[in-house]
């Protein structure tokens, strides 16, 4: 009962002109007050996983299999009404581009109060008061004046703060953050990260934080799941994964950062490109790019190996590690 989110063997397939197997057997869980990072490159399925949790993916073109339980409810079984009452109240989301995620012709105050009225049945006046309170919580200067501001009248960092205020207005248990700092300047980025971490503690929320930036993940995440080609290839605490990655993919990722790189020396890269996802994987998706690949890697899906301490890696190499040695 301590787990707020439990995802088991999630599969998401987009149909249409081209079939895309976006998520292939993802399982993870999220505890109360925990911050989980979903780390991976573009197209690895981070955002799709996040949207699946709220069933925001286009209904007609998406096939979702597996089980998603959030706060004790089976998300895949909710009907439209239940779903809309669930979104924003139990789980809410902040987006990568606050400039695009806010409605350009409604004021910030209207956009926040609208959600409050919807979920808590408050009057317009009470909802506006809540909106003001939230803008103060996210420390928007002269909040009262900002209530009547339109998104285009605010800076990028301000807009993301307003987006956070909106997402937290109904005190959700879980916040889903989809690369919320990617579109921001480096200095604003760190301000937003610090704010998010602070609010997470203050509100006692659980957060799933999607990012492709290990540096950002280090700032905010307790635990990290590394995704590749629609699968989670390794999970563990941030410390474990940064210090001693088990799977060759996070190893390659960490080797290719500029930390500790020497001037004049080429950065290490992972050779090759990620696979196209038009077929469900039958072997390890990373094997074609992996220097340590063996014959069995391509023959069958590598098992998810639990190496103890809540650590998992989907790689045959992890078999050699004794749980005791960690």
């Amino acid at each position, binding site marked *: 009962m301590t787990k707020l989110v439990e995802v088991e063997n999630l599969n998401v397939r987009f149909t249409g002109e081209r079939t895309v197997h976006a998520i292939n057997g993802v399982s993870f869980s999220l505890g109360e007050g925990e911050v989980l990072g979903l780390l991976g490159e573009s197209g690895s399925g981070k955002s799709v996983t996040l949207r699946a949790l*709220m069933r925001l993916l286009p209904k007609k073109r998406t096939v979702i299999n597996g089980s998603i339980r959030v706060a004790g409810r089976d998300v895949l079984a909710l009907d*439209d009404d239940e779903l*809309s009452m669930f979104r924003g109240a139990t789980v809410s989301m902040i*987006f990568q581009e606050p400039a695009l*995620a*806010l*409605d*350009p*012709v409604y004021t910030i105050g209207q956009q926040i109060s609208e959600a409050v009225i919807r979920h808590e049945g408050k009057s317009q006046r009470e909802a506006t008061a809540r909106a003001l309170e939230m803008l103060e919580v996210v420390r928007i200067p002269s909040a009262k004046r900002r209530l009547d501001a339109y998104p285009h*009248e605010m800076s990028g960092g301000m807009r993301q703060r307003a987006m956070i205020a909106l997402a937290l207005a109904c005190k959700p248990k879980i916040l889903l953050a989809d690369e919320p700092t990617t579109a921001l300047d480096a200095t604003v980025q760190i301000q937003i990260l610090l704010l998010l971490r602070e609010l997470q503690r203050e509100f006692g929320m659980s957060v799933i934080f999607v990012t492709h930036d290990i540096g950002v993940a280090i700032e905010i995440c307790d635990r990290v799941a590394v995704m590749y080609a629609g699968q989670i290839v390794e999970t563990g605490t941030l410390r474990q994964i940064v210090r001693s990655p088990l799977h060759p993919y996070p190893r390659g990722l960490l080797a290719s950062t500029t930390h500790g790189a020497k001037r004049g020396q080429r950065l290490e890269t992972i050779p090759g490109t990620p696979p196209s996802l038009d077929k469900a994987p039958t072997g390890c998706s990373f094997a074609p790019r992996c220097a340590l690949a063996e014959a069995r890697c391509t023959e069958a899906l590598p098992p998810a190996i639990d190496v103890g301490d809540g650590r998992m890696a989907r790689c045959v190499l992890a078999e050699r590690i004794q749980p005791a040695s960690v």
Partner: protein
Amino acid sequence: MLAYVARRFVYAVPIVLSVALVCFLLVHITPGDPLVAVLPADASQELAAQLRTAYGFDRPLPVQFGLWLWKAVHGDLGNSIATGRPVLSEVIRAVANTVTLAVVAAVIGFTLGLFFGIVAGYFRNTWIDKVATSVAIAGVSLPHYWLGMVLVIIFSVQLNWLPAVGAGPGGSGEWKWDWAHLSYLVLPAITTSVIPMGIVTRTVRALTGDILSQDFVEALRAKGLSETHVFRHVIKNAAPTALAVMGLQLGYMLGGSILIETVFSWPGSGLLLNSAIFQRDLPLLQGTILVLALFFVFLNLMVDIAQASIDPRIKRG
């Protein structure tokens, strides 16, 4: 906002002046002697010269323009050469008839256009979308005078349900909002509404589809709004552009269609222009064009102001 409105009105003044100049020059540049229409074929040179002086056509163009403009500002657009009646009252009567036709046609065209457009945008690439889009394309592509004639053949000649021409049982007399008069309006109004219906459908379809694919719609759903609420957001986002298109279409319709009004002998500004052109009735022609052009300027002004009051991104400062 009030300052914005005032500023827009001031900006309209030079536009109005240039419009007046262009109206005046256009008519004088076109070949043809206006006196030909009134003079008998065997009239003497002296009589022609006399009339020319009487109408002021012997004066230099700038002087004629100045005089014309001065009188126009005071509400005098001269007398029609053909009928001798004041141009202004002729134009006002015709414009009133055209406005009646345009407003009814706009109500039909915009209602259907908005409905088809929104439905098609919401159900993009389904059979509903295809039906709505086909109707829109047909509406824009069919020559409306041809459609008018076909409607007359079906509903007036074959079925004998509706009158074919005119604007009332007493010919082109006073307009009344009763069925006896309205029945004359049905066919021309439907014919006029077809093009705006098609254009509004296509615009609104594209707008709705475009807005629905934007990130903020997903964000609205993510905060738990019902589809009805999301729809309200979509409408408010689509409104500025849709209004601009509808304003322009209403403007075209208020200008009166020469073709449609001629097909149905609808005594509006289009029919008036038509007869003024064929009778080389210069004062009538100038007056009608001027009034219509001013109408457009005014209408654009109204649309701009309406847009600015809906869309906060349009600068009002």
